[in-house]
């Protein structure tokens, strides 16, 4: 792992994108690492495009501004690919994680991704509907981000999902989200 990993999340209000960034920060706290998780605050409306950010580092994080050159771009809602430039500020080796039904090769072409940039897809919305009956793709997206970055083990991430969702939801919803996270980790396609 590089010294600092910077992640930019793109989602729409109501999809749990901010929660995903928070759960990831919590999970990455192990091993003495420094973490940040913060959304971009604006008028908070369901369906409106939003960004959230993570920084994970082995040393103290002093930077307090949005992530400008992300190592990972996680797109929770594929319709955003048509409305905003999700590749803004991307680096030569940025990893794109996209929630889509489409083939990763098509997404790579659409993004015009460079040879060292990885493009990874997962059908997170379908996984969420299968596992707990709602189109909330954040937990499978977390699984996928965890897989492609190797920041934490799946077991560790599941523990944190259990803790974070356990405060708010019934056992059935928690179990569904745990299953969804696991499937997000496993059902990764790369092209």
């Amino acid at each position: 792992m590089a010294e600092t990993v910077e992640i930019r999340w793109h989602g729409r209000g109501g999809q749990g994108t901010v929660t995903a960034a928070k759960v990831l920060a919590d999970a990455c706290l192990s091993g003495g690492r420094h973490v940040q998780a913060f959304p971009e605050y604006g008028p908070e409306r369901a369906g409106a495009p939003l960004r959230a950010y993570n920084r994970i580092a082995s040393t103290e994080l002093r930077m307090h501004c949005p992530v400008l050159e992300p190592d990972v771009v996680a797109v929770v809602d594929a319709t955003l690919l048509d409305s905003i430039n999700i590749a803004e500020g991307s680096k030569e080796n940025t990893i794109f994680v996209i929630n889509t039904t489409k083939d990763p090769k098509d997404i790579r072409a659409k993004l015009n991704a460079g040879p060292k940039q990885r493009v990874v897809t997962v059908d997170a919305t379908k996984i969420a509907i299968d596992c707990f009956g709602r189109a909330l793709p954040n937990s499978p997206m977390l699984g996928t981000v965890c897989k492609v970055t190797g920041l934490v083990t799946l077991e560790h991430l599941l523990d944190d999902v259990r803790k974070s969702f356990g405060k708010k939801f019934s056992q059935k919803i928690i179990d569904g989200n745990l299953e969804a996270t696991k499937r997000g980790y496993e059902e990764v396609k790369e092209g």
Partner: protein
Amino acid sequence: MAKVVAVTGNEACANALRQVNPDVCGIYPITPQTDMMQRFASFIADGKVDTESILVESEHSSMSACIGAAAAGGRVITATSSQGLALMWEMLHIASGDRLPIVMPVVNRALSAPLNIHGDHSDAMGARDTGWIQLWSENGQEAYDNTIQAFRIAEHMDIRLPIMVCLDGFIISHSIERLEYLEDQQVKDFVGPFKNFLPLLDLAKPKSYGPLILTDLYHEYKRAQHEIMTKVKDVVLDVAKDFEKMSGRKYDIFESYRLEDADIAIVILNSAAGTTKDVIDQFREKGIKAGLLKPRLFRPFPYTEIADALKHTRAVCVMDRADSFGGYGPLFMEVSSALYQADTKPLMINKIYGLGGRDYLPSHAAQVLTELNEIAKSGSVKTVKEYLGARE
């Protein structure tokens, strides 16, 4: 053992307040109040603290309730932000004039109009002359640590003054970061039991607070307030020393970063200091001797110490996240006043940045350092005050 957590600045301050377990808390629970008081209200509801909450109809009333409770003899807290602090303004003077050691975290946010509640220092700078002590915090850890130390400073028997702990709105208050919590017992022992001083509820010794004082003594009363402020610095340093013994974390009246041999320096408060430090490292790698000074104690302002720390530099930019329209930024005014008394002094510029939550980016810090380097070389300043990164 310290507990490592990933929490927001608001959560951290609320937790510090829980660990202190104050007697009374004034709460006005509507925006621009943040979730800090909401979290503290949960601690009250869950029986985690013995604090009596007074829910009020405005921030003016919240401070009024705090004043009453503090004069009665309680350890009292509240928190506020933006317009809420502005509405308290009248009562802030009464809290300090009556020497009531109220502790109040202030989440720094912009003032209307136009309506904006993002990160900005205009609220606390507007309370500069209210007689409160002000501590400023770069990140969640500092906000937590400052909140705990604030009780010892405010309640010190030589001081007995109210204190604000300032932290940046959203950038720190609503963002999750790693920080270390102290044990509840450690905080309890550090802060100690509340010592009363002339409480109203001591019915055997009746007294009154804030009575009419005419031309014969008001002037002397205000001089006394100034005199107390001159003692605050030493208390802040003593408390910081004890805090370091307990936590291992070192605090001063300001932080110097790579400043000792610096040719150029930025003076900046709160979260933007962190971003600036990273850019200073990059300039140092290029062989440019850049440094930073981050005030922690803004009221009382340590003029002599700050002048001593900056007087060897060739060019300084003081950066303000607030403006005094028609004047210079409030931090610039202080730093230039400090340096005027010094035997040698740098050239100085003032940048207004990040108002209403506008992002302060590494490129902004780099732009300022580049300009400072040119000023240091040429020996002349073109424009003293400018808005940084303003769209044309």
